[in-house]
């Protein structure tokens, strides 16, 4: 295998890890309460601007921006739950769709007002530079982002499957009425889920900002990737989001290398539709 091909594969997997992280928040919310958060991509966008502001005002890199974005987005997620989601959940499905879509537009156009339409970016060398290891050239920012994303996604999965908080959240998603009989407040658990999901999204956004352009509409692009990742991995499954995220990152990267950059998305969507023919519940979703 040529060094270039290895580099393409590693690069794809690193990107895929970030796809997995910001998709896991979306899949968590769906799994918890059957709500599709259309504002998810714009949560990432807000986190990216937070990373930018942290750099411009404090001169800080991801070490500062990741925790700040995580806490800020977790707060936004909890507020979104109490001020919007909790209310639209009582209505029909269309109310949830339009409610979170409205939130998406609110965030997007508030950002246009606050930051303008210009594309921004963080300096290339904010996280080290580019290194050559075994003949592979790797951008430090992408390596750091990919590894942190993998760790956070794994942590999220452990939180859901191995802790008493995770068990309570799962209980609410399985049967909210029975959960109440256990002394659990479903609305608190759902608020915590929004906090965790949005917080994870905040981490993803601050990481992506180190190597991706920042604009008020970047959330649109990222949301589509997140939806495809979640649908491919299986709605509600964090391990599914991880596998699908890595897969999509890899396929994008390989098809850009073999066929050409403009075709990479086409290849991803063809494979996506192909997988759904055979597994409409996604790779790791329950049928």
């Amino acid at each position: 295998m040529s060094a270039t091909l290895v580099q393409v594969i590693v690069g794809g997997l690193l990107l895929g890890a970030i796809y997995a992280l910001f998709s896991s928040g979306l899949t968590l919310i769906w799994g918890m309460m059957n709500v599709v958060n259309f504002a998810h991509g714009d949560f990432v966008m807000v986190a990216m601007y937070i990373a930018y502001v942290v750099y411009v005002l404090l001169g800080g890199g991801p070490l500062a921006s990741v925790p700040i974005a995580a806490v800020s987005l977790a707060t936004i997620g909890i507020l979104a739950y109490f001020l919007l989601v909790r209310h639209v959940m009582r209505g029909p499905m269309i109310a949830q769709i339009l409610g979170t879509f409205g939130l998406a537009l609110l965030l997007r156009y508030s950002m246009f007002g606050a930051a303008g339409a210009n594309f921004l970016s963080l300096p290339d060398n904010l996280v080290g530079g580019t290194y050559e290891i075994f003949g592979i050239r790797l951008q430090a920012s992408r390596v750091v982002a990919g590894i942190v994303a993998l760790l956070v996604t794994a942590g999220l999965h452990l939180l859901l499957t191995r802790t008493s908080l995770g068990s309570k959240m799962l209980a609410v998603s399985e049967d909210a009425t029975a959960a109440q009989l256990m002394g659990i407040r479903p609305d608190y658990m759902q608020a915590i889920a929004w906090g965790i999901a949005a917080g994870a999204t905040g981490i993803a956004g601050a990481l992506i900002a180190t190597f991706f352009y920042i604009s008020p509409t970047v959330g649109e692009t990222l949301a589509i990737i997140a939806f495809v990742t979640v649908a491919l991995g299986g709605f509600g499954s964090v391990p599914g989001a991880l596998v699908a995220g890595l897969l999509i990152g890899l396929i994008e990267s390989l098809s850009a290398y073999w066929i050409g950059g403009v075709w990479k998305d086409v290849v991803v969507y063809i494979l996506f539709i192909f997988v759904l023919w055979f597994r409409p519940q996604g790779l790791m979703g329950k049928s």
Partner: protein
Amino acid sequence: MTLLSIRNLEVHYGDLIGVADVSLDVAEGEVVALLGSNGAGKTTTLNAVAGLIPASGGSITFAGERIDGKPAYAVVSRRIGLSPEGWRLFVGQSVENNLMLGATPLADRSRAAPLLERVYAIFPRLAERRLQLAGTMSGGERQMLAVGRALMSDPRLLMLDEPSLGLAPATVEIMYETLERLHGEGLTILLAEQSVELALEFADRAYVLQVGRTVMSGTASDLADDPEVQKVYLGMG
């Protein structure tokens, strides 16, 4: 001492009346049975006490405190446990997780471990299956898990909705022997049971419900001898 007191309870499901007028008392340490056919209001009464459905009239008093209008998560922390109709287990989680979820209302978390040991001692089958998913268990095991889970909150009042429904006779026997033992240890029990014979054998007192009203009450032995009860509920005479 009266532990639970229900006065003129009324529950509506939209326009439908679930319970029209139910009054009953349960004394500390007593076993009380609710009898009646399907739709008589037994489940609705238990669910209203547990706070799963709001009462639209009347009052529910537990240990001297009004609990009607309180949500279920607040009722259970006052030490009222319910093994609900249909069990409502968390089928995607292990037996042990289900039990530990039952311990959520405990103010002192360190009591969860000894309570878990106690439930495993009461139902050894659950200990054998502790890592198995609740959804993969048999009906009898699910019933045990539902009762065990309710016991994990260390209730003063244990409410059981149809503890014998759908179980094999041998399992029913085990279940009732267990309940007998818990009663012997001083636990107060309120149960809804379709099997009148079984209920009257186990309970100290019983109330008969008919279309959402308490129409008759008495000691279990009096009701067992009552020709009216025999006629209406045992299909005899």
